[in-house]
């Protein structure tokens, strides 16, 4: 099972992950290797098996509807790459 460079680039775009042109082939190779590993999963029939998302068979706990967080904007924005007038700045978003 092998991935083409084109597929790798598509996945990289979905993940907004910049990968160098010269590395694409290597990533394709690595991913193909991983996918080969995955084929082992088809060795076992799992038609009647329930998928398991969590080790614990627990229900989601509910939180009381109360405001518990105060305004910490200053602290949070002190570590931001670019802020102005309390807003996070990014290259213009075209709508």
């Amino acid at each position: 099972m092998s991935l083409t460079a084109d597929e790798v680039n598509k996945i990289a775009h979905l993940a907004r992950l910049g990968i160098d042109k010269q590395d694409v082939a290597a990533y394709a190779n690595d991913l193909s290797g991983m996918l080969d590993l995955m084929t082992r999963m088809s060795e076992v029939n799992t038609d009647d098996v329930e998928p398991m998302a969590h080790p614990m068979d627990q229900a989601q706990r509910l939180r009381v509807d109360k405001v518990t967080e105060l305004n910490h904007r200053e602290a949070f924005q002190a570590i931001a790459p670019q802020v102005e007038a309390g807003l996070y700045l990014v290259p213009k978003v075209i709508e």
Partner: protein
Amino acid sequence: MHNKTLAELSLGLQAKTYSSVELTQLFLDRINQHQQLNAYITVTPELAMAQAKVADQRLANGTADLLTGIPIAQKDIFCTQDVMTTCGSKMLANFSAPYNATVVDKFNQAGAIMLGKLNMDEFAMGSSNETSYFGAVRNPWNLNSVPGGSSGGSAAAVSARLAACATGTDTGGSIRQPAALCGITGLKPTYGRVSRYGMIAYASSLDQGGPMTRNAEDAAIVLQTMAGFDEKDSTSVDVPVPDYRAGLNKSLAGLKIGLPKEFFGEGLDENVAATLATAFDEYRRLGAEIIDITMPNLKLAIPAYYVIAPAECSANLSRFDGVRYGYRCENPVDLTDLYTRSRGEGFGKEVKRRILMGTYALSTGYYDAYYLKAQKIRRLISEDFKAALASVDVIMGPVTPSTAFGIGEKIDDPIAMYLSDIYTIAINLAGVPAMSIPAGFVAGMPVGLQLIGDYFSEDRLLNIAHQYQQVTDWHNFIPTGFE
């Protein structure tokens, strides 16, 4: 003094044989002396000293806990307020966390002293601590060998006596494997036992934080502080925390130990196998019974893990986009450029591999074949454990196929690296607790023995480990040069 166990140091502090300030300075000096290990990313001497002074006050007025005044170090995956929290990545190389992880708060309340943040594989992805942006960590037993990963810095620090104990995290073996390769004790608790709030996520349904220490008694003390329900973590389990030291000395007479035949087949170095066989004999002498068991779905753990973990991590790491914190590329021309270059430049190769794999596994058309299938296999593996643990008290086996490999040996062969997780990975899929304890040496390099227990049986595991450590000495050996 640096060679004393945490328990001994605690007694010494209580007895005022030495102060926390003295002890802290001692460790800080050692850290400085042994920078060649590259175990620490950030050392926090001022903070540590300030904490030590407060600890000494508590020790003086009788309000001290067991951990008060004890110098510890945190794997750099736990958010520590106003202290760099890098996760071993360029992406967070400048990230001063604005809050404390719950685990960090617990250590602070207990009065522990934080020496610094420990090196790790980038975003906890790796088995050798070679993927860290801050450079590889060296194994104190052989500076040309890997310490294991992802908690490589933690294992090296404890092994080289650069901290009285360390925290680690384990998603596919990242506490147990480095513990084994560095000759120390490591415990991965039951999933949900330790809060994940503030513990930077790799694979949410597999990650657990735990203690890395010199021995089981120390691990019990540290786990006592780390464990407990946290309302900020929806996956945290509300189950009472027992006294982990209370049952350490229980006799092991009649203990049933299961050895899965799947753990002792091809791929296990014969010398490691022989070392473990000696350990099993030791357990027989302690009164245990060794039973052969089978866990037929274990071999599927690696493919299942390498779908689930990357899938979860691909989404967990989407937040690193250069907008609100962390690395941002220079002069982005548009939004897409901001994202792709910040992430492309901020993440290392292994992280990118796993993000790509995870994105692929979740994408349209592949979800059923990969992700869903992997979650079904996960249930089969979990059931294997449940069935096995219904017939035996504990499962034992290797932690690693061999002792520590050389730095640079496997890093270019990711698949080979993944395959070395063979003994540890299934445990995370099931969520059961497991430990690695020193069981001997092969050619001067440590070998670890793995103990796997039923859900929330950490106290039993610690007892089983402790009894072994009463009659063996492997956990007391010191690597040359670090005496």
